[in-house]
């Protein structure tokens, strides 16, 4: 990777600007022309946010890495069809969201049962079982770890339509406008979904607030 970075620094884009200084649209244009270094730079910029986003959606690290890679493959293969109407981050998050939602649907068809939420209510939403741990807490690290696990479980127990919106907003920090473009929804719908998701999370995480 270091070699690639040095190469990226060395190679000039558009005759005057380096790859690292180029914006996302310029990198996409270079990828369209077959510039592999530009693609590596784009991967460097977005691999962590995309992996993290998909991980928050699925709560499965290995599968998240695979889907993040699939996201970049789709960016590469469809670079010629990319239209710079929106920001590139919106575009790549949309691809990642679609892949994550497809994965969730596939899992739903497989009817996998979570150990934490083996039952569902009348609306089909998972009822989380959070048995009390009677053991003494060891230290702060364990507490923090427990809190993170609880948050992850709470997010993954949200209905799919709320999950994407809340993760894009509160984890990835996208604006309402970007989320609306990413999910192909109106801004009002996005606000409504985020509000609903927060209300659900507040119920699930009341012990930690």
């Amino acid at each position, binding site marked *: 990777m270091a070699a690639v970075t040095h190469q990226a620094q060395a190679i000039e884009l558009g005759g005057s600007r380096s790859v690292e200084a180029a914006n996302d649209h310029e990198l996409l244009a270079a990828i369209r022309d077959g510039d592999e270094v530009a693609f590596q730079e784009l991967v460097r910029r977005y691999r962590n946010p995309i992996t993290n986003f998909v991980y928050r959606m699925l709560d499965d690290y290995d599968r998240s890495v695979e889907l993040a890679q699939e996201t970049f493959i789709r960016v590469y293969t469809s670079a010629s069809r990319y239209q710079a109407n929106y920001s590139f981050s919106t575009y790549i998050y949309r691809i990642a969201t679609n892949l994550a939602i497809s994965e969730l649907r596939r899992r739903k068809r497989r009817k996998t049962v979570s150990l934490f939420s083996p039952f569902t209510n009348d609306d089909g939403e998972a009822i989380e079982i959070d048995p009390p741990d009677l053991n003494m807490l060891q230290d702060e690290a364990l507490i923090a770890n427990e809190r993170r696990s609880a948050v992850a479980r709470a997010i993954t127990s949200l209905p799919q339509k709320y999950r994407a919106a809340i993760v894009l907003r509160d*984890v990835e920090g996208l604006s309402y406008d970007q989320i609306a473009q990413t999910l192909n929804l109106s801004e009002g719908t996005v606000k409504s979904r985020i509000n609903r998701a927060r209300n659900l999370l507040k119920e699930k995480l009341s012990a930690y607030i």
Partner: protein
Amino acid sequence: MNGCKYIKERIDEAEKPDLLSFEVTEHLGQCDDCERFAIERAALRKLVAGGTRVSAPINFDAMLNARLAEVKARRSFWRLGPTAYLRLGAAMACLVVMIFGAQYAGLFSGNNVSPPNRSQARTPASALTPIPDDDKPSTSNLANLSPAPVVAGVIGRQYPVSSGTPRVRRGDVLVGRAAPTGYLTAEDGGVVLVRGRNGDMDIQMPTVSVGAQPLLYVSAGQRTVRNVGTSF
């Protein structure tokens, strides 16, 4: 209190939980319910955002490059993709139809007729026998045709055919030699139906127009011309 719903919406929509507008802040100072809501929301957002941020593994790029190479190899084999193949197939079908159409119209005909020798090819119009009006074409008439080679011309003009015309067989081409006496020339244009012992033979000339052409039957022995139908 009036406006609480509106204020809660503003709190929810705030870019950051601690960056609230003056209007909202002013309201929070007067409304305990909204203030509690703002504190809860800030804590919740902090909790959700503060979860573990995972990073891509160290070998992410290597794995991605391997998968990308695989995809490229697959794409080089199916470079065009199903849609492109469909379009290509449609284009090929159109091309085949056009070729058949052009061939049918005679554009590719290699049976070029030699330049006319007017003095030899034509007989004065006065030698022609007019077409009898009552001479309708019928199956029986066609069946009783003389086995001697006869020529039917398809043009507004009427041509005499001498009885001494050499027999034209299927596949005979008039290229490179003068048209025998009694044959139609390229300049005359039209479709010529040659009827002889070996069957029928169509000679398409460069000036033929596309579409149905009237076929006139010229009997060499009887020197009469009859309309026997159209070319198709």
